[in-house]
């Protein structure tokens, strides 16, 4: 009763138009090729109400409020999808309705299964790595033999300190930076042990004086605009920065490197909210996403790897042959993922992260 009360009154809830012949899709902006949406409607007669967001937090708040009215959403696996899953926000998938399921890449499915046992609730859409973005010229000028493909770039004070003057930014995200710091220390990146996390925090604190800012999106503009020369962030974001910098008037060469110690794999997951008004159409839409040509067209648009193995052959060479987008097996073998942990662990981690960031 009380839940209904709160859900009902929270102004947050947006209820898109829904009906028999439609599906309400809430996705990242620029994340699906638009002609594919038309193709879906042509094929199935189901109208697509397509709305976009640009932060996981907004999606999270809407889903937690309840009655979001969406049929298909695309959260990032960690920490969002996994926490939403724990809160019981998603419908289990009816595999019998997903004829194209077998197109999925088993490797990515296995990685996603760490968050979603048996891949019961979500299908991997796009994925990428977490790594190091840098301004080639500025790094070379300061440290010609900089270990650009190592976590030492951001966690070794002797190295980072060289770049303090040209600017370093790290993600403002405990679930991305602390696991990387654990990895750097040779510890289990998924460790929830207090003493391990304290050590990881120690690593970040040691380099903190050389970090200009912790922020989860500003580094795109900052790298592209030449205001920083080094960032630890998501592959997709750094590609964006690279493309912008290349188009800018005073061209900057921005490069991306996957840390050789291992990289946290990020996966954006397509899933169906528990209270989806059109679950049947949602399944049809997911099955459509599993079609190789749809996934391939969207990868071409975004420049990200997709979780569809059958789509690989359809991709242009500059994507499928790019080791930063589709890394070779040896690099993939070192990908890691982390589990959600309890809400108390989340709170402890957030708190620890705040103390690290603010230097207390």
């Amino acid at each position, binding site marked *: 009763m009380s839940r209904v009360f709160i859900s009902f009154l*929270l102004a947050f809830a947006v209820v898109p138009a829904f009906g028999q012949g439609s599906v309400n899709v809430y996705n990242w902006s620029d994340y699906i090729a638009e002609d594919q949406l038309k193709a879906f409607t042509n094929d199935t007669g189901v109208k697509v109400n397509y709305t976009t967001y640009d932060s996981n937090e907004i999606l999270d708040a809407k889903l937690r409020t309840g009655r979001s009215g969406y049929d298909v959403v695309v959260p990032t696996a960690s920490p969002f999808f996994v926490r939403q899953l724990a809160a*019981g926000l998603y419908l289990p998938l009816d595999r019998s309705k997903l004829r194209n399921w077998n197109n999925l890449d088993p490797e990515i499915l296995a990685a996603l299964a760490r968050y979603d046992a048996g891949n019961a609730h979500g299908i991997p859409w796009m994925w990428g790595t977490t790594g190091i973005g840098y301004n080639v010229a500025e790094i070379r000028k300061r440290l010609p033999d900089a270990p650009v493909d190592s976590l030492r770039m951001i966690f070794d004070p002797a190295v980072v300190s060289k770049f303090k003057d040209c600017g370093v930014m790290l993600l403002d995200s405990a679930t991305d930076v602390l696991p990387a710091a654990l990895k750097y220390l040779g510890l289990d990146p998924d460790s929830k042990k207090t003493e391990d996390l304290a050590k990881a925090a120690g690593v970040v604190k040691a380099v903190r004086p050389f970090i*200009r*800012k912790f922020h989860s999106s500003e580094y795109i503009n900052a790298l592209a605009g030449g*205001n920083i020369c080094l960032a630890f962030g998501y592959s997709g974001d750094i590609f964006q920065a690279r493309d912008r910098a290349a188009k800018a008037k005073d061209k900057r060469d921005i490069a991306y490197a996957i840390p050789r110690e291992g990289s946290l794999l990020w996966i954006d997951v397509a899933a169906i909210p*528990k209270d989806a008004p059109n679950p049947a159409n949602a399944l049809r839409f997911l099955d459509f996403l599993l079609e190789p040509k749809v996934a391939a067209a969207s990868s071409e648009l975004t420049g990200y790897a997709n979780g569809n193995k059958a789509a690989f052959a359809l991709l242009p060479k500059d994507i499928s042959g790019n080791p930063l987008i589709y890394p070779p097996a040896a690099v993939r073998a070192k990908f890691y993922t982390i589990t959600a942990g309890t*809400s108390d662990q989340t709170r402890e981690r957030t708190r620890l992260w705040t103390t690290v*960031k603010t230097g207390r």
Partner: protein
Amino acid sequence: MRAIITLPFLWLGVFFLLPFALVLVIALGTNAPDSVPPVALGFSLKSFTLLFTDDLYLAAWLTSLRIAATSTLVALLLGYPMAYAIARAAPERRPLLLMLVVLPFWTSFLIRVYAWMGLLDENGLLNQFLRWSGLATDPGTILGTEWAVHLGIVYAYLPFMVLPLYAVLEKLDAGLLEAAADLGARPIQAFLTITLPLSLPGIVAGCLLVFIPAVGEFVIPDLLGGTETLMIGKVLWDEFFTNADWPLASAVAICLLVLLVGPIALFQRQQARSLERHL
């Protein structure tokens, strides 16, 4: 007639009291991350106690209050002469000057903050100018410091300081200053004994209009500030979005509101007093 009287109360009830009651109900609940919404209703003061016992939150409160207070002071020191100059300008020029004060509101707040980022960046216009002019070869970066946060807040809220100050200064009878001068007051004495006390309602109103939103400010410290600037708005954001702890986030919101009701009540009392005094 009755409808006209009821309407404001209805408005207040639907758009202020009801949401406030909801937030209060959530704040008194406990975090239930595995339910929708993630709140178990009840009567628990846990969130409030945490908010005032945890040293990190206390630090955030203090930082917010300190930054809001210093920004308010700077805005007052900048805004007073501006308001004074406008109030003393030729009457036909005042509308133009006032329009210049509110002109920034014609563009989006966010865009203006981003513009400041472009000015204060390492390679921003300010540093470009300093390097080009030779005033500094290696200027530091203001962006990402508490200086930038102050700058942003003062910039964004200065009109809220200037307008109420202008309103009182414009009404100030110039004859009172002549009377003071006639009785032997030097211009500075006349200002301190006549203009300043009589513009006190404007000072209080302006300070509240700047201080109150500055305490809860989130966007400016997030975009212009550095990571070490921990303000209470950021705590609220973290609790709501990162920890998905709605009760604690709501408790922050309630405390902010209560914290700000105090000064407003004080202001209202002062207003009532001065009204009675001038009648």
